[in-house]
């Protein structure tokens, strides 16, 4: 007997189900409803259509001839209004009532639209069907488009339009692109590739409101106040199974339409396939499981035994020419280890997650040629103990002799370019080495290889090793930590020359050996990125030592000390009262006067920090940064105000300097002193920067210390006015923070670069002025009171996240 089959929705899954039915010669009579005014097409090929690589006609999977040949009654552009399960009929929009023996839901999914103010404006669209695609194709070089969502769909929309010359900005709420498929480093590489295509990518960006003019979209407003003008706004933030009709029909529905292993819903005569279903708690967006479902559904209708099984999934994607692959579970976890391979030169990143000698997950970027082999290792749970050392290099390296990384360099021809910046070939370097340049510095001096951006330093060293053989001694320079072979200086050079503006960028381009660094390198990198890219890089509190993360000094019992700023060591009775009140209110056990002319409240409980800061803020005081690698204090004497020997207003100058410099981050702590005369009561000559006032002006010295080393400053420059002093010291501070190694005080750095080098820069008026300007620029971001910010916005993180003492007592 011929079965009457009604299909709701002409998508990829339902189309495939029909193919299976007809191929099996099923005795069926099919009516196909589709809300879109067309038949089945390959929805995942919309991106090539958008990019102009394919036409709509090329992505149609079933044409009119096919429907006709198989006797399918097409009702395209028509919705189904309701389903009467008792009578086994569906009612079409126009009132037609059609009986069915089997009903198939293939209603797919709806794009999720964030209900931002303005989301219903003209020109705000999703990326779901041909109409959306055609609207995007109508954009050209004169247009600006904003895409909300840095997942696969959003990026394909962005890339497709960018290929048409459209000015595209992608706004993504998470820290890196495609965070569900990729880890941070792969996300960084993808972002870099998109930026190279002219796409602007904003991560950690929160959309606030869509702005319109005359009912049409004109811009997207972010919550930091940024306004992104646009002619079209594409929201590609996710999809939700379309369950409305199924729900109305009284079928069991969760996230999607519930189906069993046979793709049958809670009604035995109704099946569901595709993105609208929920199977064992999972919903589906990739095409492979949808095709599996289609096959099972067809077999169920045919009366054959079949069961849908969820399989281990991998994602192999090509986002606009960037090869990506991820599979399995690549989260860190108990007993898991990572093997990381990075080839900065080729932009390749490969990470394997290993558990009990089995690969459980992988993320690959840039070179995914071996992805099937790695996926096989995951799927088959292959024991990799025997190939552990070489597994990361892929199948070509298995079963042979262990790989010698130098062999590749040895095999390079003489004309292979090693240093791209200076166009230096391997032969030139080998000749230099044979001519007596037997270490890196000498090779650099003779050939200039690796002397510019420094990316090829490792390669040059390998050429040295290959050429010299046993005579080669690795340079004595210490790498930052076990995560890298690079020195602080190498990494700083890379950050500047390669414009590395995120932690993930540094890890990748400098070939970090760990996934996310360690407690030694992360604070250093965070500092370097802040110092070199104050506007672009966002400070990462989680890469800071606790004192800088919580803006207070941790003590040996886990309590903290709190030191409010006293500008130039000057205070008032009101400030002192407020400090005394705070000490009483928070049971501060110790109140001490510091060497930096201010007051330290020791023994404050971590939970009390935001409240005590709020109290001190109310009295007009701000953080003294007594915990920071940054400006600490400017110590002063009373100068001409009161002292009979004073030559200048040293207190006033000290206050001006402190107001100019506070809040700035430096490689190590920075202490200043201003003495009003050479009697030096402010001990200015043992500060990092010390000013001694004389009748004729101001003597500025640098490189003093009174810690583990005790040193007197060396005279940097003499100037005549306060204004010149302030500019010179801003310039000096900027030079120090742009060039010194993290945790080098000025005197240590000065020993490396020489006082002369520093003086040449500060004495040159033009260079001094640009340094001071860069300092001021950075201060626009970082000169703010962290106490006020934390007390007002982040107080919650100082409290326990939960209190279980009551539960435990029950």
């Amino acid at each position, binding site marked *: 007997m011929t079965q009457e089959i009604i299909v709701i929705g002409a998508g990829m899954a339902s189309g495939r189900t029909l193919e299976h039915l007809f191929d099996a010669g099923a005795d069926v009579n099919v009516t196909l409803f589709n809300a879109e005014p067309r038949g089945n097409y390959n929805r995942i090929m919309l991106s090539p259509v958008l990019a102009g690589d394919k036409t709509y006609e090329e992505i149609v999977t079933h044409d009119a001839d096919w429907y006709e040949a198989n006797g399918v009654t097409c009702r395209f552009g028509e919705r189904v209004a309701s389903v009467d399960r008792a009578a086994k009929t569906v009612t079409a929009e126009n009132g037609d009532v059609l009986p069915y023996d089997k009903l198939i839901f293939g209603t797919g999914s709806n794009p999720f639209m964030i209900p931002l103010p303005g989301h219903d404006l003209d020109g705000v669209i999703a990326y779901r069907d041909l109409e959306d695609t055609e609207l995007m194709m109508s954009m050209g070089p004169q247009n600006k488009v904003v895409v909300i969502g840095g997942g696969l769909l959003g990026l394909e929309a962005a890339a497709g339009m960018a290929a048409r010359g459209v000015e595209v900005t992608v706004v993504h709420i998470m820290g890196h692109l495609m965070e569900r498929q990729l*880890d941070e480093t792969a996300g960084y590489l993808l972002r870099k590739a998109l930026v190279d295509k002219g796409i602007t990518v904003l991560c950690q960006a929160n959309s606030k409101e869509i702005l319109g003019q005359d009912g049409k979209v004109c811009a997207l407003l972010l919550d930091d106040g940024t306004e992104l003008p646009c002619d079209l706004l594409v929201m590609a933030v996710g999809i939700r199974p379309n369950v409305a009709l199924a729900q109305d029909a009284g079928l069991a529905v969760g996230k999607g339409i519930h189906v069993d292993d046979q793709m049958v819903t809670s009604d035995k005569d109704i099946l569901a396939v595709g993105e609208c279903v929920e199977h064992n708690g999972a919903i589906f967006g990739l095409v492979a499981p949808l095709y599996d479902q289609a096959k099972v559904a067809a077999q169920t209708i045919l009366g054959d035994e079949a069961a849908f099984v969820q399989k281990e999934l991998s994602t192999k994607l090509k986002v606009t020419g960037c090869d990506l692959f991820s599979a399995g579970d690549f989260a860190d976890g108990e007993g898991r280890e990572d093997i990381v391979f990075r080839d900065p030169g080729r932009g390749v990143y490969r990470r394997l997650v290993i558990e009990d000698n089995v690969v459980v997950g992988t993320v690959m970027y840039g070179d995914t040629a071996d992805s099937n082999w790695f996926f096989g290792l995951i799927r088959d749970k292959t024991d990799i103990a025997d190939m552990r050392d070489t597994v990361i290099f892929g199948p070509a390296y298995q079963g042979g002799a262990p790989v010698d990384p130098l062999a590749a360099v040895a095999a390079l021809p003489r004309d292979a370019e090693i240093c791209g910046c200076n166009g230096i070939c391997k032969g030139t370097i080998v000749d230099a080495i044979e001519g007596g340049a037997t270490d890196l510095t000498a090779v650099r001096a003779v050939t200039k290889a690796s002397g510019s951006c420094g990316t090829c330093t490792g390669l040059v060293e390998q050429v040295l090793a290959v050429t010299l053989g046993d005579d080669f001694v690795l340079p004595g320079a210490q790498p930052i930590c076990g995560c890298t072979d690079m020195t602080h200086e190498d990494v700083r050079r890379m950050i500047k020359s390669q414009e590395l503006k995120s932690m993930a960028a540094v890890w990748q381009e400098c070939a970090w050996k760990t996934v996310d660094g*360690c407690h030694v390198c992360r604070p250093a990198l965070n500092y370097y990125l802040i110092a070199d890219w104050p506007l672009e890089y966002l400070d990462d509190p989680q890469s800071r030592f606790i004192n800088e993360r919580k803006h207070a000094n*941790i003590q040996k019992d886990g309590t903290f000390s709190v030191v409010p700023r006293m500008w130039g060591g000057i205070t008032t009775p009101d400030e002192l009262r407020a400090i005394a009140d705070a000490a009483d209110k928070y049971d501060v056990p110790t109140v001490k006067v510091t060497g930096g002319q201010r007051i330290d409240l020791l023994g404050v409980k971590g939970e009390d920090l935001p409240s005590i800061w709020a109290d001190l803020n109310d009295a007009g005081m701000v953080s003294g940064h007594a915990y920071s690698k940054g400006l600490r204090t400017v110590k002063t004497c009373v100068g001409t105000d009161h002292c009979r020997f004073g030559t200048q207003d040293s207190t006033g100058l000290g206050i001006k300097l402190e107001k100019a410099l506070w809040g700035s981050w430096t490689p190590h702590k920075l202490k200043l002193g201003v003495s009003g005369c050479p009697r030096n009561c402010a001990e200015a000559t043992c500060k990092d920067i010390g000013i001694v006032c004389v009748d004729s002006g101001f003597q500025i010295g640098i490189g003093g210390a009174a810690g583990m080393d005790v040193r007197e400053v060396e005279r940097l420059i003499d100037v005549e006015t306060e204004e010149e002093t302030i500019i010179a010291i801003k310039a000096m501070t900027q030079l120090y923070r742009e060039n010194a190694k993290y945790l080098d005080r000025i005197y240590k750095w000065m020993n490396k670069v020489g006082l002369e080098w520093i003086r040449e820069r500060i004495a040159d008026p033009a260079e001094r002025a640009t340094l001071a300007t860069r300092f001021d620029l950075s201060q626009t971001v970082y000169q703010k009171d962290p106490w006020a910010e934390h007390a007002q916005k982040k107080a919650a993180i100082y409290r326990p996240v*939960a209190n279980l003492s009551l539960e435990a007592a029950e």
Partner: protein
Amino acid sequence: MTDWIDIASIDDIPQRGARVVKTRAGCVAVFRTAADEVFALDNACPHKQGPLVEGIVHGSAVTCPLHNWVISLETGLVQGNDEGQVATYPARVEGGRVLLDTTFLQARSAA
């Protein structure tokens, strides 16, 4: 028997960070790694009882803020040349919520 109790949203703990959970027998530090895995450990370094919750989290380890001892979040074992172990407790993430096993915490307070 395990008795999972909902502690907080995963977003209450910063990535590569930690927060304290108070229990009757002292504080437990709940860590979140870059890969969004959570771990619960006693909030005290075996060296000088430094508050591990304030340490820098890297990979699946934390560095004590007082003297830089590195402790595995998975096993509680001190890494490198130092020796010692911190008690660990079952913790997991489900549907964006962080869950701790109260039976373990109670056993801890009874011990």
